[in-house]
């Protein structure tokens, strides 16, 4: 089985003993109307405690990939393993360890009040009611939506619904968090809050996060690794954000624009060859630019 072909390049770069939480090897799914998504090329691997972003153009197969991780689709070819088991067959054994947010959050709402909806999983797992309450309050606070607790979820605004869905995903403290375009519809502050929260969760609790996004500018800040899907599902590229964004050709094929800062730096380089190396966070960029200007002042004979 493809699962066994652990070529060295899939070993965790920093920590060779790190546990693989998710692995997808050359999975193919053909939808009933004949549209085929072939998640092949490279293996997709997510290690414990890492945040992995999946990028790719519309219709590449990102959601299809997450559906395989969640066992909603069964691989017709290839293999998927999550916590070492096949999710399509043994979802019930691992679902307590997995938190989920779907792309269309409307599809995810179960109960008629926000509080009940977030409490759904802990109640069904039979936690005592006091603990259920406590968990729900904690997670609502974490996301800053305590005041929504008694509202009817369908009546919320788009962004509010997304936060409720996220609360439902986080309430059981999952080991693996699977998020399909979590930043869409969130206002910039909530987006930043979510980025910080995910960073906190993965560092403090070793939570593994797999998410898809089109928000390129958030990727350098968020992700430990990024995967790029090409149209058709081919996994074309893998690496740290800096590695990925340096690969202009594959990105262009994948309809992916580099982040704004990456573009700014390459514009600067075109104008002036002495411009600094690409920096992907605002802090680094400001430092690099200031350094660039200062350096050009110092020795009056640079060029």
């Amino acid at each position, binding site marked *: 089985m493809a699962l066994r072909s652990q070529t060295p390049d899939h070993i965790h770069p920093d920590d060779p003993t790190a546990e693989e939480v998710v692995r997808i090897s050359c999975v193919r799914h053909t939808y009933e109307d004949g549209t085929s998504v072939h998640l092949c090329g490279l293996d997709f691997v997510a290690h414990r405690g890492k945040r992995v972003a999946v990028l790719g153009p519309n219709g590449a197969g990102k959601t299809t990939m997450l559906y395989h991780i969640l066992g909603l689709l069964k691989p017709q070819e290839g293999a998927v393993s999550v916590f070492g088991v096949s999710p399509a067959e043994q979802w019930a054994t691992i679902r307590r360890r997995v938190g989920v947010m779907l792309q269309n959050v409307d599809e995810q709402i179960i109960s*008629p009040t926000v509080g009940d909806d977030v409490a759904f999983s802990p109640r069904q797992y039979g936690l005592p009611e006091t603990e259920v309450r406590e968990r729900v309050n904690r997670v609502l606070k974490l996301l800053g939506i305590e005041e929504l607790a*008694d*509202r009817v979820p369908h009546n919320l605004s788009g962004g509010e619904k997304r936060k409720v869905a996220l609360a439902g995903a986080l309430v059981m403290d999952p080991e693996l968090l699977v998020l399909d375009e979590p930043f869409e519809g969130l206002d910039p502050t909530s987006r930043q809050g979510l980025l910080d929260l995910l960073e906190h969760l993965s560092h403090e609790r070793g939570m593994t996060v797999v998410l898809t996004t089109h928000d390129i500018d958030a990727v350098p800040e968020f992700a430990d690794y990024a995967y790029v899907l090409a149209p058709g599902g081919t996994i074309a590229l893998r690496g740290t954000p800096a590695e990925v964004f340096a690969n202009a050709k594959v990105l262009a094929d994948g309809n992916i624009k580099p982040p704004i800062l990456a573009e700014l730096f390459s514009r600067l380089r075109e104008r002036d060859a002495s411009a600094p190396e690409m920096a992907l966070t605002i802090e680094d960029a400001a430092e690099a630019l200031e350094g660039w200007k200062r350096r050009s002042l110092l020795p009056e004979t640079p060029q």
Partner: protein
Amino acid sequence: MSHIHIPDGVLPVWLWLGGWVVAAAIVWLASARSGGVDVRRKVPLVGVMAALMLVAMSSEIVPIAYHINLTVVAGVLLGPQLSIVAAFVVQVVLALLGHGGVTVIGLNTLMTASEMLFGWMLFRGLITVLGPRRVGLASGVATVVTLALATTMLVGLVAVSGVGAATVRETGALDPQNLTFAAPFSDSIFSVGLFSGGERSSSPAVPVRRFATIVYTLGPLGWLIEALVTAAVLSYIARVRPSLIFEGALTPARQALPGDEHGRH
């Protein structure tokens, strides 16, 4: 309760044809007076309620041979004009699915629609008396009374048509004499057409009086179930979407959900 399951060819022609004519007339009237935007905006509600009634009416609770109708729920939410349209649509589809014949669509539409109208009127009356907070009670009472009235209509229909009561399906039609369920087809075209002699003119197998006894002793069980379901559904809606129930004169003082009192400003 809200409709009869009689195959074609059982009822006298004057009865079912009369039913069709009256039904067609009121459906046409209801539809003709619908140019207004406000009525049109309720069409999706009618669609959902019709779909729900279809599901409810076509699934049966076996031990008491009863199915939930949701007629009072739909009547309260739709009001008179839309109820008529919904009743007609539901009966047409039910007939296509074999619940009764096509000839009785007219009569069935009338029965369902009048049940919805009764329910709607009673509910409105009770709410004005009891106040807008007693939706559960009002709808429960309205349901029981409505069903009792509808049952009486059914008995009347049986008496008028001279059809064997056993051909009429109704609430909990368990025959207490031999402890079998009333069999609508044993006496009619189905059995004869398939296996035996000619298409007899059906002589009432059960006298109307006994039919009435059965219905009035066992019916209340079904009414109770229906009342519970109706009360649950309507109180829920009154809590989260009061405007579906209350409009115009019935509008209650704004009911905020707990936690929303402070709103967000």
